[in-house]
């Protein structure tokens, strides 16, 4: 198909360039090492990529915005094209945001791309984190990478918060007001922290400039550094893969980086970017022109932060009434400290989970084959409870919208959420664990007896049976290749003493593994197959004799 002369010429140019670069940088070695690296192919492995690509889109669109946005809180009187704000007092930050929206071609588009991309970035990172959790991908050797990912998630939240506060509009300004109030509530140092952050009294003239430095310089730099570590570890560890025929803990099965992954993953960047662009073209996000510049006196009904800060706002709303108390003349703002502490504890629990599970199981081996969530029932149930806890807090931030749009009483919605926050995670745990165990039992049943074929046969002695089709060995393997753990007793140490740690570990191992379904073994399958053959023989005899 290709002209040999052309091929030669093309090869000549490419070969020449490659040679030039290799003599100066040694890329040949890199290409050899990484060019045919194998990556497994499953859609759930692409969620991290979605986050990565949204981040790239944020960098691109954000750079555009930095050329037009002015992070100054100096007051100005608006003289632009948006009529409802003509003559209004506002800060230069807000005014430049309006100019980007209404007077720069593509400015509004880039603002919307940037903001939608930010929402997608944290959502994809969160969903990716959930995938990693529910498949046990955080186990050795990836515990540290889990912590790096956790830091990235928190940095993402920080980037988003600092970002949407930059236009200094009424909605985000009230968000800053809330942060100020929370800080003031910190014992001893509260008013100092608030003064430090705002450069004096709230709102001051400094905060937007400072958030700008954080948002365009410090936080992106940190994200890039942690991203580099995250991806570096991914390359060293190689990607995990689901259990299946040919897949073990000592290999990785998939497709080579070049050309398949370059095409798929490279193409996927354009797809993610394209989807963001599509939404940004057709759907309004953050219509700051309607909110007006920040002023501490007006406020809009339905004041919520961006979704990834929602759980924190919900925590504030769900705090019970009047729990502030005094120590002598000093005020302890428990109504702020309680939500704050609970949020921090939740984050801490997420960050240390891999180490806890590792300690309980004592499994020091490397794990590269993923768990199906059902095969780790207690871990999955803990995850479900955690998700439910987060979700109730998240829903708690929209109590007023729920009340208005579903015609309910605001007060009743709030009280039900306070109750749900305690009850629902417990219910989620119990239900999820039971569902996982039931699914495991079903899998075992199918592995040993085969799939129900729908053929009913009546045996000569009158019994009706359904004929089961044995599974193809490739499908069978997926059902039986999972790791099975059992609880342990507390054992005395070298000195003959049973330590508290040993006791705790023993009870936790019971909590995790006392309800367990073992994978079907070859012996059990052979026995069942033998039994099935006997019945099949009987069936054949019956058919013969009836002829």
């Amino acid at each position, binding site marked *: 198909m290709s002209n040999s002369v052309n091929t030669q010429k093309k090869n000549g140019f490419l070969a020449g360039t490659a040679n030039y670069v290799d003599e100066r940088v040694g890329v040949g070695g890199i290409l050899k090492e990484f060019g045919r690296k194998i990556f497994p192919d499953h859609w759930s492995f692409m969620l991290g990529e979605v986050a990565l690509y949204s981040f790239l889109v944020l960098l691109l669109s954000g750079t555009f915005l930095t050329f037009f946005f002015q992070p100054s809180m100096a007051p100005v009187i608006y003289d632009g094209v948006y009529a409802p704000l003509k003559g209004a007092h506002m800060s230069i930050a807000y005014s430049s945001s309006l100019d980007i929206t209404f007077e720069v071609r593509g400015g509004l588009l880039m603002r919307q791309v940037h903001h939608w991309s930010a929402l997608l970035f944290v959502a994809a990172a969160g969903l990716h984190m959930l995938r990693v959790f529910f498949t046990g991908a955080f186990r050795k050797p990836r515990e540290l990478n889990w912590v790096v990912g956790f830091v990235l998630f928190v940095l993402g939240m920080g980037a988003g918060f600092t970002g949407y506060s930059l236009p200094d509009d009424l909605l985000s300004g009230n968000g800053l007001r809330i942060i100020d109030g929370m800080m003031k509530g910190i014992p001893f140092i509260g008013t100092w922290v608030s003064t430090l952050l705002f450069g004096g009294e709230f709102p001051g003239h400094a905060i937007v400039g400072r958030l700008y430095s954080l948002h365009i310089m410090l936080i992106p730099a940190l994200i890039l550094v942690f991203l580099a570590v995250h991806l570096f570890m991914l390359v060293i560890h190689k990607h995990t893969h689901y259990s299946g025929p040919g897949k073990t803990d000592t290999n990785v099965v998939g497709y080579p980086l070049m050309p398949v992954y370059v095409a798929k993953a490279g193409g996927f960047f354009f797809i*993610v970017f394209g989807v963001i662009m599509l*939404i940004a073209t057709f759907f309004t*996000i953050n219509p700051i022109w309607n909110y007006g510049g920040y002023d501490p006196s007006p406020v809009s009904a339905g004041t919520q932060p961006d979704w990834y800060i929602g759980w924190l706002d919900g925590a504030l709303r769900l705090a019970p009434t009047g729990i502030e108390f005094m120590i002598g003349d000093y005020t302890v703002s428990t109504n702020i400290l309680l939500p704050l502490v609970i949020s921090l504890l939740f984050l801490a629990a997420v960050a240390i989970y891999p180490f806890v599970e590792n300690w309980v199981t004592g499994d020091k081996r490397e794990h590269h084959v993923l768990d199906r969530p059902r095969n780790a029932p207690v871990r999955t149930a803990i995850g479900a409870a955690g998700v439910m806890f987060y979700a109730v807090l998240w829903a708690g931030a929209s109590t007023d*919208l729920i009340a208005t749009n579903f015609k309910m009483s605001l007060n009743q919605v709030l009280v039900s959420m306070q109750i749900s926050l305690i009850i629902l995670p417990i219910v989620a745990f119990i239900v999820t664990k039971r569902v996982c165990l039931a699914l495991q039992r079903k899998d075992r049943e199918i592995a040993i007896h085969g799939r129900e074929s729908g053929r009913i046969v009546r045996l000569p002695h009158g019994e009706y049976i359904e004929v089961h089709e044995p599974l193809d060995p490739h499908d069978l393997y997926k059902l039986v290749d999972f790791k099975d753990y059992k609880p342990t007793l507390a054992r005395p140490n070298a000195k003959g003493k049973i330590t508290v740690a040993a006791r705790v570990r023993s009870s936790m191992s019971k909590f995790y593994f006392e309800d367990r379904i073992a994978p079907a073994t070859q012996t059990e399958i052979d026995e069942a197959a033998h039994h099935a053959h006997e019945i099949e023989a009987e069936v054949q005899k019956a058919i013969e004799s009836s002829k």
Partner: protein
Amino acid sequence: MNGLRRSPMAFGIVLFAGLLVVGTGYTAVQAAVSPSTSATRSQEQVDLGKKIFLSNCASCHGKNAEGTLNAPSLIGVGEASVDFQVSTGRMPGAASGPQLEVKPVQFTEEQISALAAYVGSLADGPSIPDAAYLQANGDVSKGGELFRINCAMCHNALGAGGALTQGKYAPNLMGSSEKTIYEAMLTGPQNMPVFNDANITPQDKNDIITYLKYLQNNRSVGGDELGNLGPVVEGLVAWLGMLGLIIAITIWLGAKSN
């Protein structure tokens, strides 16, 4: 002189003078607070209105609009209140719920004017606004500022509506007419505060109406407004819309080709 001071008529004169002073003073103050209450209503209208009232309203509001356990007195609420409540369909009121809901309007314009005339005739109260202030030709920028200070906390900065306590709510304003908006401000229906003319002058009210009309007539430059409900809906769209679409694409991407 001495005799006059002690005269029994003195008391009457003083009393009369006092009443005159207080009465005119009060009327003057009231006039400053609410626009002219002497509407041009005809006796025909009032009579028709009374008939409609007796058959549709008296069961809750009392035969003479004096109020019952079920509904408040309408004496002094003025024509504007009646016009607002009946022309938006809130009245005749439904039985239960934390507040009156907008329902299909049950009367013709003529009937509503008659009702308003009748109730207005019972005592002075806020009257139907002067058409001059309903032209939406005011200062849209001033209107926006006033809207944010006085209205956005309940009705939301874009007029999308908002929650009050115990199941009450401030409704969405995007379908309201100029007259309805004016009358609501003037009369303070249900738990909405009263924004009399000393608080928000008739020109201010026109400005606010101008701003709301601007919002109603100018769709967002950014595309679909997603109900103007803010970051909560934007978050849902990001998760269900964007992430959902992208996950569907990843499933296609990872699947073996045929």
